[in-house]
C-alpha cells in the first residue's frame, strides 16, 4: 500500500506545476482598477446574447408575418 502511495504524485507536488505565489502588493495592484478581465468576459457574453436575440427577433420572427 505504501509503495502505491509513494509512486503516486499529485501535479501540485512539483513546484514547476504550480503558479508562482503572488504577493499581496502585486494582487492589490492587479485589482486596483476593479475586475476588468471579468467585466470584459461578461460583456462579451452579454453582447453575444444581445446580438443573438436581435437577430432572431428582426431577421427570423418579424419576417414570418404578423399574427393576431
Amino acid at each position: 500500500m505504501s509503495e502505491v502511495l509513494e509512486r503516486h504524485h499529485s501535479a501540485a507536488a512539483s513546484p514547476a506545476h504550480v503558479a508562482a505565489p503572488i504577493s499581496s502588493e502585486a494582487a492589490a495592484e492587479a485589482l486596483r482598477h476593479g475586475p476588468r478581465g471579468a467585466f470584459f468576459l461578461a460583456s462579451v457574453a452579454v453582447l453575444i446574447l444581445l446580438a443573438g436575440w436581435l437577430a432572431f427577433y428582426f431577421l427570423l420572427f418579424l419576417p414570418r408575418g404578423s399574427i393576431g
Partner: protein
Amino acid sequence: MARTEKRWLLLMVGLLTLFMAIVVASTMTSALHPPSNVETIDPVTLHLGGEFAESNLGTAQEPDGSLTARIVADQYAFVPYCVKLAVDTPVKFRLTSVDVVHGFLLPATNVNTMVVPGYVAEVRTRFTRPGVYSMPCNEFCGNGHHGMWARVIVVPKPEFPALAPTERSSCVQQ
C-alpha cells in the same frame, strides 16, 4: 453593494428595458400578439348547421375584401384538406375541433394555435409570399396523428378572384 455591482445591475436593467421596449413597440406597430379568441361552440352539433356546416367550410371573401378560412379538425384530418388564399390580403383562420385537441401550424409563418373542442380558434395574418404551406397537426391527437396534415395554397392576388368557390377549398386541378 460595490460600485461595480451597481453598474452591472444598471446595465442589465437597461438591457431588459430595451428588449421589452422592442417587443412592445413591434406589437403596437405590427398588431402582433398571440391569438386570444375565446368563443365557445357545441362540438356535437356544429356539423348540423351554422358557421361550421360543411357547405360553409373553406375560404370565403368578406365584403371588405379580406378572406376567412373556416376549417374543422377531427381525427385524423382537416376539413377541407386544402384551402386557397391570396397573398397580401388580410386573412382570418377560424378553426374548431369535433373530438380532441389538435394543433394548427403553418411552417415559415408565425401562425400557430391549438384547436380545442368546444372553442373556436381564430388567427389573423397576412401572407407576404405566394406558395404552398403545409399544415400539419402539431398537437398529438391519437394513433393517426402523424398522417394528419393539410395544405394552404397562397396564390398571387390577381389570380384569386378567378378561382371558382369550389377551387378555393380544393387542391384538385380543375
